[in-house]
């Protein structure tokens, strides 16, 4: 093994452990003798992370109704400074994962390697592989100092794999006084209604972009998605323009998707977007501009107006 101990920041929502947590656990097991988790919901995650190879859960207490960043970073930093920390820490590129990583980086005066899609071994230590320029180039970065290696890992970088292990043993980490940094309070939680499959799990994703011309045309994307049992998605351009909520966004800033089939309608394929979808198994692109970068990753490209192609496509599918 390359290192002796890796901690994975385990995230859960409504008691369900995130997929990215399980993916990171699978990779960590390949690299370390001991794999353990840090979580704000230790008892909720213990069984599932145990079944995926974690032997212990370090619970960070008292985060209910607070943001995770300051407390989790404070608890991990205290453990590291007391000599009981790991060699490396894996966190997801998620809302809370980035918060924890940023605060922890300052507390340990240690850098973070971000946007990691693979962990490589170089000269007996861990190195992060990060795609740049829309995934056309890979950069491998390693740490130069011997503080714990902090990696922010992109979703869907690894395949999760159960080990069938028993529930991980839960114990509390101690949280130091957070002072003003812990003062933010969550007063309410809102769940946005979602119908149909989610971007994360869908077998087929249909996304729309600026080529749709106006926000009403996004209906065509919704209809096509519905007729295929697919999840609707969007490029950053139309999220920024306010046509659809941020939760639809596929790309560097939004969701990373790897469905069986990805259909890009009126999306030019900016780097920002390609990073989030080029791992899809099959890609179909419909765009007016034959020079659009989306065609460089498409298995099937239709050079044409989405306003002409989509209605016929929807009709043909509904008539089947």
């Amino acid at each position, binding site marked *: 093994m390359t290192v002796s101990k890796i901690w994975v920041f385990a995230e859960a*929502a409504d008691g369900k452990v995130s997929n990215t947590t399980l993916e990171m656990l699978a990779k960590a097991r390949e690299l370390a003798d001991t794999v353990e988790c840090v979580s704000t919901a230790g008892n909720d995650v213990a069984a599932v992370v145990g079944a995926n190879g974690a032997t212990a859960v370090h619970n960070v207490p008292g985060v209910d109704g607070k*943001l995770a960043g*300051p407390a989790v970073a404070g608890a991990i930093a205290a453990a590291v400074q007391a000599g009981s920390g790991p060699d490396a820490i894996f966190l997801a590129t998620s*809302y809370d994962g*980035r918060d924890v990583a*940023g*605060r922890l*980086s*300052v507390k340990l*005066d*240690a*850098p973070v390697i971000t*946007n990691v899609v693979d962990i490589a071994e170089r000269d007996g230590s861990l190195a992060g592989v990060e795609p740049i*320029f829309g*995934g*056309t*180039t*890979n*950069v*491998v970065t390693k740490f*130069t*100092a011997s503080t714990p290696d902090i990696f*922010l890992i992109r979703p869907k970088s690894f395949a999760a794999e159960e080990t069938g292990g028993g529930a991980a043993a839960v114990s509390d980490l101690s949280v130091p006084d957070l002072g*003003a*940094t*812990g*003062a933010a*309070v*969550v*007063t*309410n*939680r*809102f769940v*946005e209604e979602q119908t149909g499959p989610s971007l994360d799990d869908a*077998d087929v994703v249909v996304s729309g972009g600026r080529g749709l011309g106006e926000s009403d045309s996004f209906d065509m994307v919704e209809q096509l998605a519905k007729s*295929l049992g697919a999840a609707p998605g969007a490029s*950053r351009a139309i*999220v920024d323009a306010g046509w659809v909520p941020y939760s639809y966004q596929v790309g*560097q*800033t939004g969701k990373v998707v790897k469905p069986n*089939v990805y*259909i890009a309608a009126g999306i030019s394929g*900016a*780097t*920002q977007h390609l990073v989030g979808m*080029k791992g899809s198994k*099959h890609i179909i692109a*419909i765009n007016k501009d*034959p020079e659009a970068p989306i065609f460089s990753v498409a298995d*099937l*490209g*239709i*050079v*044409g107006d989405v306003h*002409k*192609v*989509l209605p*016929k*496509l929807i009709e043909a*599918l509904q008539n089947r």
Partner: protein
Amino acid sequence: MNVVVCVKQIPDPADPGALDPESKTLVRSGKLILDESDSYGVEMALQLVDAAGGGEVTLVSMAPNDEQSGLRTALAMGAAKAVLVSDDALKGSDALTTAKVLAKAIGRAGDADLVLTATESSDGYTGTVPEMVAEILGLPSVTFAKSITVDGSAVKVQRQTEAGYDDVECPLPAVVSVTAGVVEPRYPSFKGIMAAKSKPLDQVTVADLGLEAGQVGWAGAGQEIIEVSEAEAREAGTIVEDDGEGFQKVVDFLAELKVI
């Protein structure tokens, strides 16, 4: 109310990026522009100061080669003044060093009630700098804000989550990162552009901020790039012109994949 906005000046994202073969950092020799992600924070700051009925918006930026054009754009939108840190010693700085420099520059900008940032830059996109700045300054923070209101000495934020959003309340001063697209950034008026030319821009070096050259840039980065390689390219696909029957090609392909 005084709001400081951290903004980045970046190479135009429409231009193809390149790495310097020696330093393996992004080539930034061309003209830089205001990162579009930051225009939302600037707009949000202007609206909050307006709603508070007083105060001003100050910009803070770190950039090579004395670059000012992106800052002038944000000044033309209505920001009152700017602090620019430009120093050859900063070349190769990582996110943590960037946060240390920005935190010092925020201190130099004066007493801020609120510090706004984007959620991530469009060129480096580590998405960690806002939390790092907050931690260095010892402040609470709320990331991924889709709306912000100030109520007396507290800020109320709707924060993006996987499932929807959370209402978060946080006492001031605080750091808040603003999600792109949540406000409509104003276009600078002609009057604004003319006024921006004479607005105060405090250009400083690393030494002016009380930092040593050895703490920043390559020397301060605890990480190094050891390999750069081409990623595996996808096999070229079939590209056809729509002749009115293009939809049929899609139907056939979906049938072949047994999706329908």
